């Protein structure tokens, strides 16, 4: 992004960002805001739709947690009437998911002012709740406490795409002392319009930020290589794959939590009800009988086949698995191979066509 501006945080960066959002509403730059907020008695910030500037002081835009992926909701709301512009505070993986959903007609990007959040990672929901009990200002502390940062969700630990792309406005936290200042970055277009409304003055980007980003990236890259080589090895045989997914309960949580799995109802969950009993008996007659509910391996492979090209690496699938199958690790591994083969990167650009629709006549088999 070309323009960068520092804002004073006075010890509460979340509050400072909330105030910017409130000003966007007041200036009528947007008519609604999508942002995480914990409403008592709950302590876990969840995606919330607000359109009253006064309500913004209760929100937690920087909370290091994503109850669910906000992409699904932002996409859904964006399909509303064209007069209503919405500012959505989204993590990088959520923006990528939003871009994928846009290609599938599930989102209307024109209606959104996308505010991207630099993301050092998110805590698992339960961890956040537990830590909240021990730390009064968890949202603020997280950004300076390396110990807290080391407890982020397992998928986030090997995420290298932690800088938001395709956003209009970025909230910058890396390499900054959030107790003093946070950064806002933007490019020409809607982002610049918003920056003007917020009276942000372009300034010098602190050099420290580049170093912080590089160091985080190299740390993540080695973690990612390790995760991928481990799961690559495990899943590359039928027994290895089974060792990971054989105890799948068939709850379909991973599919429902996945922000890019856009089907109203998964073909596999429907088939669970429509099993051909005759066929099941035939299969049961083979050595070892058949595992029930049937179709679980097919379910995971179908999701890989359908979504590997679109996987944005958010890790929600792993987070919601009741028996801790490393679904996201498997996906990350297969997605890397698939996206490389198709020369595609999920969420890279809204203009990039879905690879399965590219029926080029060129080339051979």
């Amino acid at each position, binding site marked *: 992004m070309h323009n960068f501006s520092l804002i004073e945080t006075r010890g509460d960066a979340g509050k400072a960002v909330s105030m910017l959002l409130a000003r966007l509403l007041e200036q009528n730059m947007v008519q609604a805001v999508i942002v995480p907020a914990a409403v008592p008695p709950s302590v876990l910030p969840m995606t919330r739709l607000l359109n009253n500037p006064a309500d913004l002081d209760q929100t937690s835009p920087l909370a290091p947690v994503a109850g669910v992926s906000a992409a699904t909701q932002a996409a859904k709301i964006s399909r509303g009437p064209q007069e209503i512009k919405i500012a959505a505070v989204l993590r990088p993986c959520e923006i990528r998911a939003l871009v994928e959903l846009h290609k599938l007609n599930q989102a209307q990007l024109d209606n959104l002012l996308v505010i991207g959040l630099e993301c050092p990672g998110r805590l698992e929901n339960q961890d956040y709740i537990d830590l909240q009990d021990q730390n009064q200002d968890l949202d603020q502390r997280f950004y300076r406490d390396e110990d807290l940062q080391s407890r982020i969700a397992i998928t986030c630990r090997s995420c290298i795409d932690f800088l938001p792309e395709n956003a209009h406005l970025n909230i910058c936290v890396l390499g900054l002392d959030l107790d003093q200042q946070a950064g806002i970055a933007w490019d020409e277009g809607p982002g610049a319009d918003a920056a003007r409304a917020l009276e942000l003055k372009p300034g010098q980007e602190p050099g420290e930020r580049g170093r912080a980003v590089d160091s985080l990236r190299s740390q993540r890259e080695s973690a990612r290589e390790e995760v991928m080589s481990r799961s*690559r090895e495990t*899943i*590359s*045989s*039928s027994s*290895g*794959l*089974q060792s990971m997914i054989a105890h799948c309960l068939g709850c379909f949580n991973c599919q429902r939590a996945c922000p890019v799995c856009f089907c109203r109802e998964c*073909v596999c969950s429907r088939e669970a009800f429509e099993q051909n009993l005759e066929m099941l008996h035939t*299969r049961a007659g*083979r*050595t*070892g*009988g*058949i595992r029930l509910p*049937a*179709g679980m*391996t*097919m379910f995971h*492979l*179908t999701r*890989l*086949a*359908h979504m*590997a*090209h679109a996987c944005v690496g958010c890790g929600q699938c792993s987070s919601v698995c009741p028996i801790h199958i490393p679904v996201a690790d498997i996906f990350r*591994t*297969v997605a890397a*191979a*698939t996206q*490389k*083969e*198709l020369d595609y990167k999920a969420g890279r650009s809204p203009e990039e066509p879905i*690879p*399965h*629709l*590219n*029926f*080029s*006549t060129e080339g051979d*088999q």
Partner: protein
Amino acid sequence: MNTGISRPEEAGTDNSRHKELDVLALVCNWCTYTAADLAGVTRLHYPAQVRLIRFMCTGMIDMRYILSCFLDGADGVFIGGCHPGDCHYLTGNLKARVRIKGIRPVLESVGIPPQRLRLEWIGASEGKKLQEDLTSFARVIEQLGPSDYKGMNLV
């Protein structure tokens, strides 16, 4: 949309060696199946472990059909469609091609080497090519041996 399974019982070749290997050939009705007809008419033999399944178009071959074949114990899946430009439905074969390109890395990741899935363009008049392609594919599968998923009875 008849997808009849046929297994040519062929005398004179040694079946016992690869009796347990299964090769499914998913072929398009218009070109490759016509080529198979022609191969039959001209009495060309193709390997006995190949079973032909006829589809109206390779473009209707869902990725799940391919997964299903492998989970069900197929050792190789052969897809035969029209040459680019020949598709009865204009671009079905190209859809198959990009779909196969997308599913190959998935299969490879879970232990099904890419050689076990092959796409060939076989025109309606190419009975000979059908025979050659099926034979060479069956030979590759024979060298690879049974698939890792064979006998797992997974669904």
